[in-house]
């Protein structure tokens, strides 16, 4: 019952505002849904102001300004100003394309706390190939501009088979740019990256080598540059504590106002996700069917239900469980207690080794490809 679960809802400490799904880049591993072409009814500035205010009142402290590419929004400075006024710690998660040194200065004045810039690779050719546009030189310039404005310089590189062999160079580039923080995020396979899994999934050997390189630099650069290496869960025996639990800490608002516990949740069947256009953040977070669906432990099936580790990883990822077993309440097959674990391992091993994907092109994240590849799942665009 929504009522009895609301007292374990906790606070939405982390608000992710996906301001738009428009983006000048076309990365084939993008974590946005395949249905990006259907999100045309973007929230207005005033809508976002209300979302910010209501979430803050519930205890939100960290604000991620993301997308797509948040720089596409011309009201970004206003949103930052309001977020700052409300007391958020604001993080701009960006490709860097759509700003210049002057705009970075305006962000500083508006009170933006930090800017995270993505790189697709450590060399221009691969970076621009993956991003689908000439952006490498500009990113380097923006990394420097961010530092010039007194920001901590934070870089994000999504790792996959096409760039994992460059890891040493990627870290060296980060050191040269005097990055304070480097996030090496192994690709997760939902949406676009799932479409391209044959191209993107690294082998276990590649992953292990990358992990040792990351560890080496973590030691070497201790106290100088913090390196966060996110291990790909496909090669693990226990799942990640996805989002720290469903509806536990993270609240994502998609560009059309749909509220989600995570990036990929809209892929789950039979759940209507509430929209901020006609619901308060409080009612969404505390009372909605969607946000309460996988809260607590009552929804769990075996082996999760009686597992002593359930409070540690919450059974893993619901979206992954649904994707691989057809049951969103099942154990995440990454866990070796799942009856689907071996099948996942076999699948992963064969995908990583096969080169049949080499005959198929990479499917880049474009609006045209969105229309072509989106799933048959009935999608009800939130019309207002």
């Amino acid at each position, binding site marked *: 019952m929504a009522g009895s679960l609301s007292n374990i809802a906790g*606070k939405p*400490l982390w608000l992710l505002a996906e301001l738009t799904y428009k983006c000048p880049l076309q990365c084939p591993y993008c974590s946005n849904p395949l249905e990006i072409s259907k999100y045309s009814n973007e929230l207005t500035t005033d809508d976002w102001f209300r979302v910010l205010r209501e979430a803050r*009142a*519930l*205890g939100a*402290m*960290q604000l*991620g300004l993301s997308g797509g590419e948040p720089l596409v929004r011309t009201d970004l400075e206003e949103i930052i100003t309001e977020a700052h006024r409300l*007391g958020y*710690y604001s*993080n701009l998660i960006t490709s860097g394309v759509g700003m210049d040194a002057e705009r970075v200065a305006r962000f500083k004045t508006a009170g933006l*706390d*930090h800017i*995270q810039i993505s790189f697709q690779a450590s060399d221009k050719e691969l970076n621009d190939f993956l991003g689908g546009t000439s952006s490498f030189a500009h990113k380097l310039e923006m990394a420097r501009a961010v530092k010039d404005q*007194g920001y*901590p310089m*934070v870089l994000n590189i999504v790792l996959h088979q096409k760039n994992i062999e460059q890891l040493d160079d990627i870290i060296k580039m980060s050191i040269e740019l005097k990055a*304070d*923080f480097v996030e090496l995020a192994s690709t997760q396979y939902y949406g676009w990256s799932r479409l391209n899994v044959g191209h993107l999934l690294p082998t276990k050997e590649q992953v292990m080598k990358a992990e040792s390189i990351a560890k080496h630099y973590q030691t070497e650069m201790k*106290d100088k540059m*913090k390196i966060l290496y996110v291990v790909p869960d496909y090669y693990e025996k226990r799942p990640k504590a996805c989002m720290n639990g469903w509806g536990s800490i993270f609240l994502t608002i998609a560009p059309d106002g749909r509220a989600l516990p995570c990036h990929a949740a809209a892929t789950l069947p039979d759940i209507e996700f509430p929209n901020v256009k006609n619901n308060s953040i409080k009612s969404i977070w505390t009372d909605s069917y969607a946000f309460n669906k996988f809260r607590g432990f009552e929804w769990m099936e075996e082996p999760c239900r009686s597992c002593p580790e359930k409070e540690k990883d919450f059974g893993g990822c619901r979206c992954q469980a649904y994707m691989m077993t057809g049951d969103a309440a099942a154990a995440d097959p990454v866990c070796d207690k799942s009856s689907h674990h071996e099948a996942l391992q076999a699948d992963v091993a064969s995908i990583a080794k096969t080169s049949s994907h080499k005959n198929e092109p990479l499917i880049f994240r474009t609006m045209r490809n969105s229309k072509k590849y989106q799933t048959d799942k009935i999608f009800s665009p939130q019309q207002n």
Partner: protein
Amino acid sequence: MINQTPSLCSMYRFQWEEAQGNYVLLYPEGMVKLSRTAGEVLKRVTGDATVKQLVSALQRDFPESDLENDVIKFLTEAKQNGWISF
């Protein structure tokens, strides 16, 4: 340490969170919920006061024994975490 001057590293923001009823440290995409001691100490890390001055100020507001040891212990940990520098 007692005569050194600690200051908060620029990547970290220290603030009181009404909704939480405690002080927090916020940094890129992360947060640390601070214990009462930690909050009271960091509140006085202004970049102008030496550890000695900090302890005196704290002692005035919280007349308890062994405060200096607790403060030094916490500041050592804070430095290790990269929250402060001297």
